[in-house]
């Protein structure tokens, strides 16, 4: 296996972006640009599928590892995947083409530039998930800010400037502390290579501070309460494709970071700070669910529900148990699909009515039935109905939490009920009820591309809801190994 498959996954979108950069930008609907972008991302998706197929599920060691000297005697460019990261790469390559399809109606001006930003974003996101060196990871993690800032700022809604700044500065502030931690790790352990660090371990006396520094970055990105406030703003103002990327993939970087770095590198500190994470997660779940109940803007509601869902994820990760951790990974994947779908759903009605307020709608079930059905499916998946993908993760997380801490689990379970409440209420107010607003009668049902996007998301949502086995097979060994390594480290301290 000598072909640098991961690097080509990272590079391909950039090549596509370069190609687009040198084509001429046309006003209006620039089909060529869109086809080029779509083609690039779909090829990337197939490469990642191939990656998954040829991935050896029986071992927890990193595969497809590439290592090159980058800064001599200091940093090596090192990438590789294990059972955990490969699924996030798949998620990324799966969601990005859908984003590109979704620009059909939403992005009116400077389409080419938008596509370039999305493509560059994709390669940075893939880079985050397969980086095996802390500095390389940081590079990709931070670099993603640039395209996202532009996506929100140029193509966003009326308050876009404020949101873009908030997004950028919040995330940057969190991340610089991580940079200090990374450099400190280099001086403490003499390397920033993740695999080597797993073996070496980091002296327990440094772990707490380092953990906090990493936490500050990941907590902002997750986002955890109380640093979540950038997310609703960013979501509301971002164009649909931007919201989808943000919810489906960017938030997962932090969850992935927690698993890969916080738990993997700082086992002792993770144990120490578990109560902190539990508290923040539970607050996030309950508090933001209540906030979500009161929202009048659909995108904002879904944004707050994202915070709540990510609260479940962090809860599950820090149970430090098989079920909890697996549940968190599955929850991140399912949230990636479902929140992407929900934002696309909001985008669909927004394109027609140019309003995201819930009160604009009501009683549209008879006017756009196809949409209503798909929207229902995703609503149910978001609230975790058994038989949908959303259920699997949530259930496992709660199971893991029950083993670890009964009280936390009970409180978190209320979050499930609240989740059902706000999602169903949203659905009821938008789809059912009396048709008051006469303008709604002009609405047309899903067009072909919208139908395609939502079905693409619906199929895996249902399929993995009934049969999540392939995913578990992929992550199981890696997670078991991570937990074993963790327990071993704790025992030896």
């Amino acid at each position, binding site marked *: 296996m000598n072909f640098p498959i991961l690097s080509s996954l990272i590079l391909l979108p950039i090549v596509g972006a370069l190609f687009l950069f040198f084509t001429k*930008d046309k006003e209006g609907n620039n089909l060529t640009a869109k086809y080029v972008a779509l083609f690039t991302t779909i090829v990337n998706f197939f490469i990642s599928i191939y990656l998954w197929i040829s991935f050896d599920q029986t071992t927890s060691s990193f595969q497809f590892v590439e290592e090159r*000297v*980058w*800064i*001599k005697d200091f940093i090596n460019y090192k990438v590789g995947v294990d059972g955990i990261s490969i699924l996030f790469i798949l998620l990324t390559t799966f969601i990005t083409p859908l984003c590109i399809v979704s620009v059909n109606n939403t992005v009116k001006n400077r389409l080419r*530039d938008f596509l370039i930003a999305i493509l560059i974003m994709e390669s940075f996101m893939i880079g985050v998930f397969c980086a095996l060196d802390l*500095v390389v990871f*940081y*590079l990709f993690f*931070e*670099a993603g*800010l*640039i395209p996202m*800032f*532009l996506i929100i*700022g*140029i193509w966003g809604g009326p308050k*876009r*400037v404020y949101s*873009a*700044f908030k997004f*950028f*500065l919040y995330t*940057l*502030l969190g991340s*610089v*502390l991580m*940079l*200090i931690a990374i*450099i*400190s790790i*280099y*001086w403490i352990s003499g390397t920033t290579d993740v695999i080597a660090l797993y073996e070496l371990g980091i002296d327990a006396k440094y772990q707490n501070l380092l953990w906090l520094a990493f936490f500050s970055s990941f907590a902002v990105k997750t986002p955890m309460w109380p640093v979540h406030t950038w997310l609703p703003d960013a979501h509301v103002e971002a164009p649909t494709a931007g919201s989808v990327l943000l919810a489906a993939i960017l938030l997962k970087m932090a969850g992935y970071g927690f698993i890969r770095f916080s738990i993997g590198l700082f086992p002792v500190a993770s144990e120490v700070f578990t109560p902190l994470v539990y508290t923040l997660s539970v607050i996030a779940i309950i508090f933001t669910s209540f906030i979500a109940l009161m929202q009048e803007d659909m995108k904002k509601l879904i944004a707050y529900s994202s915070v709540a869902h990510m609260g479940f994820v962090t809860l599950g990760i820090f149970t430090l148990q098989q079920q909890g951790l697996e549940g968190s990974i599955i929850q991140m994947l399912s949230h990636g699909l479902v929140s992407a779908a929900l934002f696309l759903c909001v985008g669909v009605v927004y394109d027609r009515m140019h309003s995201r307020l819930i009160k604009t709608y009501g009683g549209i079930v008879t006017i756009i039935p196809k949409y209503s059905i798909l929207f229902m499916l995703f609503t149910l998946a978001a609230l975790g109905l058994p038989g949908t993908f959303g259920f699997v993760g949530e259930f496992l997380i709660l199971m893991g939490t029950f083993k670890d801490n009964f009280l936390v689990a009970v409180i978190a379970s209320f979050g499930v009920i609240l989740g059902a409440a706000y999602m169903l209420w949203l659905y009821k107010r938008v789809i059912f009820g009396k048709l008051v607003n006469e303008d709604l009668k002009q609405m047309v049902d899903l067009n072909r591309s919208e139908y395609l996007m939502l079905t693409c998301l619906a199929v895996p949502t249902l399929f993995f809801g009934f049969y999540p086995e392939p995913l578990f097979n992929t992550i199981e060994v890696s997670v078991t190994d991570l937990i074993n390594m963790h327990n071993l480290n704790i025992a030896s301290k």
Partner: protein
Amino acid sequence: MDNLNLVLPEILVSLSIMFLLILGVFKKNSSLLTFNLSLVTISVAIILTINETFSLNRITLFNGGIVIDQMASLMKIITLIGAFLVLGISSTYLKSFKIFKIEYPILILSSVLGMMIMISSNDLMVFYMGLELQSLALYVLATFNKDQLKSSEAGLKYFVLSALSSGLLLYGCSLIYGFSGSTNFDIIANQLTSDEYALTFGIVFILVGLAFKISAVPFHMWAPDVYEGSPTTVTLFFTMVPKIAALTVFIRFLYVPFLNLIDQWQMIIVFLSIASMIFGAIAAIGQTNIKRLVAYSSIGHVGYTLAGLATGSNDGIQSSIIYISIYVVMNLALFSCLLMLKRNDQYYEDFDDLSGLSKNHPVLSLSLLIILFSLAGIPPLAGFFAKFYVFKAVIEQSMYFLAIVGLLSTVIAAFYYLRIIKIIYFDKEKEKYDSDHGIWLKFSLTFSTILILLYFIFPSKLIEVVSRIIII
């Protein structure tokens, strides 16, 4: 007899200054010729520096007054390249203000000569001579657009304050001479016993003078006014070239004679660094003129450079040198963009003038985007690596406070860079600017932007060169 080959570049530059002066007297309308000859002089000097001295280890000349080592050669080359590009870019700008005169290249050459002497100085007197030579040339350069009130004001301000700081510096030199018995760095280093606290006064005075020259807080007051008032090309020269020389002197002064007194000066440098980083970041927020903004941002960047110096280690020195090299490239790129904002022979330099630039000038705005994100220190651009090396060196010495303050101030600084990006990309567009720019401007913009953008592919190259610099 010392090997004069080693100072051939300096000799060449001084001879050509004299020659050009005479040429200017006897030949009418020789501006263009002077410009071209100066460019030739500088490029020959670059080649000479590379050929004669680049591979040498430490050699001292003229009774130890001049030192030729890796650092001197590298810094001279950067200085010369900077001056070369500034001179090249300047002509169009000067022509449009009708100040395209022979004095300009000659003054640039004299200040470059002064800087080269500063860079190589190993003696307080030699160092002071070089410093004054470059300063005097710079005062005149600042007032070069003498019909404009602001330009004259800038020059006068610079002159008065700079003369004051030179006075302090000279007083410091005399104190050091008095207490150590020599002006030569090496001899001072040998004579030094670490309990000579009186020497500390001398060090402090000299540090104040040097801090003034690189505009570190709290000796920065002149910078914004001078930067704003001077002709843009001169501002570009100010932000790039003298900083390199001053930094070299800073390094040599602190690390050759006074390394043993590190306990005495380290806190001062840390303070200068922290104050500059924070002040540069906060004060820049309220600006509306790009040149003023650059002044404040350069104060901030000087803070990062000093952070590397404060470490007292070779890694720190190297990281400072890397920082300043990358910073010079970023500044060159930024000013090339600024000089492209021209419409009907009028130059624009306010934030409002950038409004919506991305609609009409997509390539220029993209370059600005890259440059500004790089200045803000966002990976994977070159500016990030500059900061990264500095903080790597800082954290190696366990100076966590400095590192945390520094990185937090990058977040504040990011705000004002983002504000410019916001104006360029998110705001309503204005009239188009001219798009026929000189080849120099295009070249320097393309060259520097590509360096910034693609630095991350081969980051080792610069480190390899810099890592040969060993002072301690």
